């Protein structure tokens, strides 16, 4: 039962409908709001499966359905849907993870007064995200891209009465918008160069060989589009919003800021991969590698459970970008899919912990939850091992290996590979630290002490995600690279390379071992005790804990610049332009003042005597000014008569 491309719009339309219903439903009616949202997403999931069947029938084909949005000139601005394995797989991932997170949210936000709005926003997000995936036009993709940004803004600021949440929402929107401006410019540049924004259009789409040949490769367009991805996917140097976005409710962090939206940048780059020139790819690879290492480093020194996971997300997104940059976009998507599952699992696990521990997020305050929260512990452990890349069983291992192999095979530079390998150790290390602090040892606060396992609406999604976190890896092993070949039948998968695999296994073991040695063997006793690493290298640890001071740096540069520009613009208005207007309006007055000043100056200059005489004379003259208008008129009349007589008598002939 396939879903043909003409009806692909149904996939985003259903959540959109649910959002519409949710927005007008009475806010008391909780089941209606959550029920429609979940039902709509479940239907979308089924439709996505149908779409995958259709796509698998002919994986190399890009089925499209294009239509005119509005007329422009002799042509029209056109949009369209696109169905290929990439779209279908992404849709399945988003709907599946989304569905589980929706179900989890019914438990997590049970007590919130604005339950209805939450599901309304979540449905809006799902609709926009799915629209982004099925878009066959960079314009439509951009539209949905902005809409997911809006949903993210609304959901980060869901608890808007908290100033921190409101500020974080604004920061996220503005930071991603900086990247989006690059995307917008890249888009109009592309439009201007090719006359189209459709990806595939029967030979005339921008990703098709004839148009690409005519375009002749433009590094600038590729890099501008990459700007959008940098903003959305939290790449260096625009990663600063992602950790702050954790102010939103935890299911939001799981869905938007870990599994789906932030991965949209990777998806975008995978989608426009044919446009990217080698130079652009080099930049992307290095950015990804730097991000991967930087995220992992910062994660080591964080204490908030969600922030650790957020920086881990930054780091993993860096891996994906690295994969794109070294030319293997299929492995990037492979890692995207596995990461979506295990990171959603980790976030939901964290959410489960936070919910049980009455919104305590500081890992120093937690501890010992292994006992009371067995399901959560088990599933979280699976997620942690998947993320760390524990060999052979867990999906993260296979996808990360694929990326490292692709980086190894890159013929430009081996630097990304080394940075990636360094990040592997750190990833294993900080995840071990997290596990040890949260689940082992003894409870270090009342909240942690009274924590209890959550209801099934929250644990069942955890279980399902754990299954995926294990199973998904087998779709893309080097021995059976089904996923890569489905996405791109021409993809060349690096087989073999056991040496590299051994190295990476050793590095993972190193990370896990050192983490356990430092944090697990002798667990923390008091919540106020200093971190063992902080004791050994206080300055480095403080620098990392302050997130490498990026926020401070930006506040000191761009923040100042922004403020300065505002002051400048305002002052320009108030003083220069308005002043110019006032200047003209007072020109006459000014002239008068000048006149008087000169007069007085002249008087004071030594003409006192003359002026005295003049003044007397003037005074007598001024007596003629009686102020009597009649008198003046009379004078005029007599003057006239005298004049006429004078003329007559003078004999002017």
């Amino acid at each position, binding site marked *: 039962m396939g879903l043909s491309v003409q009806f692909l719009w149904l996939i985003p339309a259903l959540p959109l409908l649910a959002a519409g219903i949710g927005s007008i439903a009475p806010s008391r009616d909780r089941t209606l709001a959550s029920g429609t949202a979940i039902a709509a997403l479940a239907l979308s999931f089924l439709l996505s499966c149908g779409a995958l069947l259709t796509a698998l029938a002919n994986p190399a084909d890009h089925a499209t359905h294009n239509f005119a949005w509005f007329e422009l000139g002799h042509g029209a601005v056109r949009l369209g849907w696109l169905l290929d394995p990439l779209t279908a797989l992404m849709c399945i991932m988003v709907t599946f993870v989304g569905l589980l997170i929706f179900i989890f949210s019914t438990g997590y936000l049970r007590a919130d007064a604005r339950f209805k709005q939450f599901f309304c926003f979540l449905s809006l997000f799902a609709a926009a995200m799915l629209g982004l995936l099925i878009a066959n036009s960079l314009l439509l993709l951009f539209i949905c891209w902005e809409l997911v940004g809006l949903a993210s803004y609304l959901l980060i600021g869901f608890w808007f009465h908290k100033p921190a949440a409101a500020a974080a929402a604004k920061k996220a929107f503005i930071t991603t918008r900086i990247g989006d401006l690059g995307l917008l410019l890249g888009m109009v540049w592309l439009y201007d160069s090719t006359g189209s924004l459709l990806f595939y259009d029967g030979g005339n789409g921008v990703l098709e060989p004839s148009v690409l040949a005519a375009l002749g490769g433009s590094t600038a367009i590729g890099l501008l589009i990459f700007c959008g991805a940098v903003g959305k996917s939290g790449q260096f140097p625009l990663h600063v919003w992602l950790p702050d976005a954790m102010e939103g409710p935890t299911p939001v962090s799981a869905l938007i800021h870990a599994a789906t939206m932030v991965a949209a940048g990777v998806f975008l780059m995978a989608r426009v991969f044919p446009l990217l020139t080698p130079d652009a790819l080099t930049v992307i690879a290095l950015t990804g590698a730097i991000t991967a290492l930087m995220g992992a480093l910062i994660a080591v020194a964080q204490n908030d459970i969600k922030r650790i996971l957020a920086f881990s997300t930054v780091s993993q997104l860096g891996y994906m970008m690295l994969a794109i940059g070294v030319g293997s976009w299929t492995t990037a998507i492979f890692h995207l899919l596995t990461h979506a599952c295990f990171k959603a699992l980790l976030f939901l696990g964290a959410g489960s912990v936070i919910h049980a521990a009455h919104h305590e997020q500081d890992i120093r305050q937690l501890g010992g939850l292994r006992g009371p929260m067995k399901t959560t512990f088990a599933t979280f452990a699976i997620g942690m091992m998947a993320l760390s890349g524990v060999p052979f069983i867990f999906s993260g291992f296979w996808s990360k290996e694929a990326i490292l192999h692709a980086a190894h095979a890159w013929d430009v530079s081996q630097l990304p590979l080394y940075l990636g390998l360094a990040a592997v150790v750190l990833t294993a290390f900080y995840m071990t630290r997290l596990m040890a602090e949260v689940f082992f040892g003894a409870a270090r606060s009342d909240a942690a002490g009274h924590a209890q396992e959550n209801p099934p609406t929250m644990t069942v999604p955890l279980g399902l995600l754990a299954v995926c976190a294990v199973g998904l890896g087998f779709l893309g092993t080097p021995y059976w690279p089904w996923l890569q070949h489905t996405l791109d039948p021409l993809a060349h998968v690096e087989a073999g390379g056991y040496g590299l695999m051994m190295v990476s296994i050793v590095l993972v073991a190193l990370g896990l071992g050192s983490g356990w040695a430092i944090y697990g063997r002798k667990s923390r006793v008091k919540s106020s005790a200093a971190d063992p690493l902080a004791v050994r290298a206080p300055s480095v640890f403080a620098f990392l804990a302050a997130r490498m001071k990026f926020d401070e740096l930006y506040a000191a540069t761009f923040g100042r610049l922004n403020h300065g520009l505002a002051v400048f613009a305002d002052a320009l208005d108030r003083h220069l332009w308005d002043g110019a207007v006032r200047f003209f309006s007072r020109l006459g007055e000014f002239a008068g003042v000048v006149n008087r000043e000169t007069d007085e100056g002249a008087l004071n200059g030594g003409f006192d005597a003359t002026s005295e005489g003049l003044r007397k004379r003037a005074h007598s003259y001024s007596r003629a000014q009686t102020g009597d208008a009649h008198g003046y008129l*009379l004078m005029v*009349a*007599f003057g006239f*008569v005298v004049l006429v007589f004078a003329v007559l008598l003078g004999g002017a002939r």
Partner: protein
Amino acid sequence: MTAVLILIAVATLCTAAVAMALRNLIHSALLLIASWTGIAAFYLWAGAEFVAFAQVLIYVGAISMVVLFAVLLTRQSRADVAIAPGSLGRVVLALIAGGAVLGVLVGAVLSTKFANSSATTPTVTVKQIGQSLGGAHAAALLVIGVLLTVALLGAVVLATTDRAEKEDA
């Protein structure tokens, strides 16, 4: 022809003279309107229809209204209308001055030999007026326009109640 002119002249002069002499300002304003209408009639008689209509529009239509408004806005108690002390002297002085001017003018008119006037009435159509307004006299038209704008603004500014001053007072 001449009889009509004399008739118009007498009517105009009489109304003007009475208007200047009356005490009641409203009456004199109304009489002045009549006088202006007489002038318009003279223009008609002279063949300048456009000017006649302009006269009617502007004097009879507009200025008279402004005058009436001004009169109504500045209505005073009866006492003020009475002739102020010492004004008899001024009336006499005025009559002397007026008489002198009149004498000079009449003398000049009567003693001057005018060149023989053309028998045919010059005709000027509205179209010609328009053409010279837009052509030869375009600059003057602009200046007049500016003058009117300035006068309008000035009148508004003068007549506006000055809030600050009122508060002071």
